């Protein structure tokens, strides 16, 4: 038996299909050595980034399926893009079944790590940091999967993004969990995506904590089927530092969890504290648009049991002081614009703008306490979240 085992081991290692491990070290020529390894990798290979700081002048990219890029810890292996001279992101992945784990990206000129059309990707224990803290000239997104099916983001830490720390766009079957988003404009943003699970994250010191959006005129439309549960959404009070042209530039400082133009979203089990405009905000898209495929309203949004500490105690809203006074000194924790459909469990206070039409601002509002029905059916959670097999790579 022992002999057979040895023979099998020899056979495995001698196979031309055996995965190889390529180890890269920091120092002279790291840019070329690492990029060359990323290009010449074969499916199944693992590229190991030895601990240390890699000074990189250009964006890196990976276009080979089924490759693992592994560092020696998010504080051990640092890809430093402070002197980056080209490319739109630090690392770009365009192939399927890729695992990125245990390294950091610092100060990329554009986005941090972008994966586009990269199905079944795993981001695990990564850190993306703009080290100067909030600044409008920081890159837009730290972790940026887009146009992909199967996305697992687990145990990452993102700081300083001038748009969203963790941004998942135009994708399907998504899980974002166990991650920390701190001091970004938006902590975590799910945009034009379906079947997303956002759980066990900490979103703090952002302008807005967790955002679920649908925008018009994108190639992939119809966002929805999202669960936001068991997150700590605390002290999102950083003044908005996004460049003005961006959609998140309109996010009010102190927004906890925000749903805009989406359908079938469940918010439950979260702890919301210190989000001074609105712990939970459910609204329609406010801009004019031309897109027949687009529904600007928030439909079938379900607010389950959440733990609120305080409500909108310092709202960044026109007439905020008057509103506060009208509601007895503090706005109730759930804010709705009155459009679309919202269900809230009993005992969770809220207020509504009572708008009757999309595209109208606060000027058309006639604010009143929220009176909506409690959720009727069990929220259908099947199909929500990343495919289970992605867990096996952790």
């Amino acid at each position: 038996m022992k002999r057979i085992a040895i023979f099998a081991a020899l056979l495995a290692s001698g196979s031309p299909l055996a995965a190889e491990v390529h180890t890269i070290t920091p120092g002279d020529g790291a840019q070329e050595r690492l990029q060359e390894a990323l290009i010449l990798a074969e499916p199944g290979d693992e590229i190991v980034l030895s601990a240390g700081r890699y000074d990189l002048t250009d964006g890196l990219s990976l276009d080979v399926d089924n490759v693992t890029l592994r560092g020696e810890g998010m504080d051990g292996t640092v890809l430093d893009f402070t002197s980056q001279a080209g490319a739109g992101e630090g690392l770009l992945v365009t192939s399927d079944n890729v695992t990125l784990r245990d390294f950091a990206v610092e100060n990329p000129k554009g986005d941090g790590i972008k994966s586009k059309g990269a199905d079944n990707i795993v981001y695990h224990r990564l850190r993306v940091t703009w080290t100067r803290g909030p600044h409008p000239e920081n890159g837009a997104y730290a972790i940026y999967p887009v146009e992909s099916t199967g996305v697992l983001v687990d145990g990452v830490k993102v700081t300083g993004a001038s748009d969203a720390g963790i941004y998942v766009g135009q994708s399907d079957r998504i899980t974002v969990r166990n991650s920390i988003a701190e001091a970004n404009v938006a902590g975590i943003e799910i945009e034009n995506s379906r079947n997303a699970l956002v759980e066990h994250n900490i979103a703090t010191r952002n302008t807005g904590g967790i955002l679920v959006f649908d925008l018009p005129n994108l190639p992939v439309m119809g966002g929805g089927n999202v669960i936001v549960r068991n997150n700590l959404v605390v002290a999102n009070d950083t003044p908005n530092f996004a460049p003005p042209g961006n959609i998140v530039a309109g996010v009010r400082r102190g927004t906890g969890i925000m749903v805009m133009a989406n359908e079938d979203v469940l918010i439950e089990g979260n702890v919301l504290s210190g989000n001074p405009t609105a712990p939970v905000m459910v609204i329609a898209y406010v801009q004019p648009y031309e897109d027949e495929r687009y529904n600007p309203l928030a439909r079938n949004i379900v607010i389950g049991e959440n733990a609120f500490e305080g409500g909108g105690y310092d709202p960044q809203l026109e007439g905020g002081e008057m509103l506060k006074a009208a509601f007895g000194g503090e706005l109730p924790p759930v804010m709705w614009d009155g459009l679309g459909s919202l269900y809230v469990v009993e005992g969770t206070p809220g207020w509504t703008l009572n708008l009757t039409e999309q595209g109208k601002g606060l000027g058309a509002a006639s604010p009143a306490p929220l009176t909506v029905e409690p959720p009727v059916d069990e929220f259908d959670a099947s199909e929500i979240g990343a495919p289970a097999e992605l867990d096996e790579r952790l």
Partner: protein
Amino acid sequence: MTRGLALFLIASASLAGAIGVRATTLPMHQVSDAAVLSEKLPRLLSDFQFFEDGPAQVPAYRVLPYRLNTPLYSDGAEKLRFVYVPLGEETSIGEDGLLQFPVGSALIKTFAFGAGEGRRLIETRVLLHRADGWLALPYLWNEEQTEARLAVAGARIDLTTPKGEAISYRVPNKNQCKECHGLDGAVTPIGPKARNLPAGWLDASFGLSHEEAGVMPLWEERQSASAEAAARAYLDVNCAHCHRPGATASNSGLDLRWEQDDPHALGIMKRPVAAGRGAGSHLYDVVPGKPGESILLHRMLSNDPGVAMPELGKATVDEEGTEAVRRWIEGLPES
């Protein structure tokens, strides 16, 4: 000289003379079809034998030079373009006007700076049509200018542009080649479309004709073209390889192809999606009559990585191109 070699040279000379090609240079090179078609990555540019004389950029037999009416801006580099199609194989024109080269074909583009004796070849990019699709590879010329070597990871070269700007010139890596040449996940040629090729060249080279042949303005004569034609040709050639459905920047929703006629897809009063700080303080990609408020022009006028567009392939602002785009936006009717 041995008798055998002398006879060979005479035979070669008469053959070359008979078909009227460079009878003075001997022996005449044939492209290595094996190198084009193999599954390997040839280490040296000379392995392909695309050139009779590589350093002088004299092409080999059946390697045809060509130009584009409106070219891609590359920091003012002189670009020498060639196409090779194996003997006996057919070239046709696809639906969107893109030339459909048969398997075994190659597109070759050399980037050079400096004129006359001072001309320095920097890199030669090749697109090979192999049995399993197109493959893009970058070759970097050596200091001595005798040979170009495969540089899958690309390189950075310090040089001075024709306008006198000292830049760190980026030779793209193999993946970056695909960032521009990728469409629906596969590598494809971009440049040789009928609309951007002189009709006479198409006919003389491949016996092809196309109703759209050469409709894009000659860049050096753009002042006599309409502002729209000049700008739209420029945007197609410089931007639309990414900003179109199925390509690298598809998620932006911006589609700058020549054939696109939906104003919103072209960026007119379109809000950005993921522009980040690239938007500057502006709200829309293109604001009719207001180039100074248009994100599209703002990004073309930037040299800051993370803002600058295109993201790859240039380190300096294209004054001529941005002027053409500015003129177009200025003339768009304000609604």
